[in-house]
């Protein structure tokens, strides 16, 4: 263990969240729960990024009364990245959900293994 674990406890939390999402994805058979796991993963990454941008005592990067110095504002880049990331994860979630809806309409179940068994039976 390195020296900064306690100082970076925020990142540590985000990492643990990441792995929780990962485990969700691996362990649950229910599609909706898998999707939730995905979202947990993404959010943990955004938390990580947000913490990366943070500088103690500095404010949001919006220029107020003309102060433009590095030691006034936090690092704007991670915020931008988080924005992009959020949009991406929204789209992906929508796609996953619509796939789930289709599968449910067809097979009346959310269990992926069950669906694949059913497919084998159809021998399609």
């Amino acid at each position: 263990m390195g020296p900064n674990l306690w100082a970076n406890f925020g990142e540590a939390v985000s990492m643990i969240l990441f792995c929780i999402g990962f485990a969700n994805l691996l362990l649950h058979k229910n599609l909706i729960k898998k999707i939730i796991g995905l979202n947990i993963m993404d959010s943990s990454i955004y938390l990580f990024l947000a913490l990366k941008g943070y500088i103690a005592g500095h404010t949001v990067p919006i220029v107020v009364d003309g102060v433009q110095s590095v030691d006034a504002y936090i690092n704007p880049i991670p915020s931008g990245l988080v924005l992009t990331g959020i949009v991406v994860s929204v789209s992906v979630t929508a796609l996953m959900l619509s796939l789930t809806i289709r599968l449910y309409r067809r097979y009346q179940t959310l269990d992926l293994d069950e669906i694949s068994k059913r497919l084998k039976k159809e021998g399609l």
Partner: protein
Amino acid sequence: MDFICNFPFFSIMISMFSGIVSAVLSRKAAKWLNLISIWVIWFLSAVLLYYIFGTGEIIVYKMGHFPAPWGNEIRAGLLEAGLALFFCSIMLLSMTGGRKKLMGEVVEEKHNLYYILVDLMLASLLALIYTNDLFTAYVFVEINTISACGLIMIRQNGRTIEAAVRYMIMSLLGSGLLLMGICMLYDITGHLLMSNIRDAVSSIYSAGTYPVPLTVTIILLTCGLAMKSALFPFHTWVADAYGYSTVSSAAILSSLVSKGYIILLIKIIYRVIGFEVYRASHIIDVVFVFGLAGMIMGSISAIRENDIRRMIAYSSVAQIGYIYMGIGLGTRYAMIASIFHILSHAATKSMLFIGAIGLTDVSKGSRHFEELTGSGYRHKIAGITFAVGSLSMVGIPLFSGFISKLLFAQAAVLNTRKMLPALIVLAISTILNAIYFMKTVIRIYTPTEEEGERITMKQEKVYALTCICFIALNIFIGMCSQPIVDWIGAGIDMFA
């Protein structure tokens, strides 16, 4: 700056533009727009390649008014231009070869959506090839993933949708890891542009600060991209996705999409981490081992299949294993072999899919070996295409597969530490390839009593033309390999 330097940017923008516009176009118009844009991009890339050969220097193109570390950048060297050209050709051939099927398998009013997907797929591939910014790469990886998912499930039966779900899950895990890696890299280097990251990485590597995060980052990036490109343990979705989607999608997915990710990985190795640093980290050995495992397991599961398209899908798992094996050998020569194999496999695999679809057409639409018996006589050109593809896969000289195997073997021989496992596995997997491909070829050329429907070349001119182009391309790669290898080498040197 010459006007030609705009061409990479133009090609990305053209494909995106056509993708956006196709939403309101009719089926025919969308088709033509797609065709034309691919042709234009093909032409642009060809000119660009010629230009770079002439000048011999890298084109660095800043997107916007701000120079490198602040603005966004795309970058075109020999390798990039050539890859763009090649990807366009394969995309074009796959589209033309599978169009007839597409008509049958996709709902009439969703065709233009299909073309949108293809356009954006091409755009994202081009962006992955050209971009010089890691985060942009991430965004376009996502576009690539979503459009690939769309390509899988555009033909809507239960199989494809389930396959799409599996694909999405696997590749979203991959993107998660990738994004996490990018964030960590950003945290320890403070840059997002590849070149700057490389300088920062080499400095912190020599200074010895942040050794652990660097290693973990490399692991994350590699795992993420390996997951997305269906390396062996993560290949569960492949069979369904390639086996049941409409044939153009299968061809494009198997030959371009996974290759796009591998290209990105190679870029990361050379342009972000730096080849030396990457080799110093032991992840490369892990990649090597998984590549070997993929080469064997893919072929074994392909042998067990009795469904021609699933078999081809599994064989591409094995081929991906070859590529990663080459990366894992960790020498410049092996890297050249890998990139060459990317090309030859892209050409061969799409060809196999196109050939297979012709064979299944004349076998009452069934893809099982029993019905395929003798289909090679019922549909001559498809049979020849499939046979040539199989011979290339088996590694008969004159075809592209032989050269890539040869290059791999030479690279392996040059690396004394990994020589024996690489060569032995290469031999075994080649023999396995021979077993299942030859089995299929003999099956389709075994004469049968019952008369199925026949399809002659005159009935399907476009299809036949596509097949001939594929064969020509394959033999071209197989016979004139030396200039290609030189080109790849020069491109890699430009990379670094």
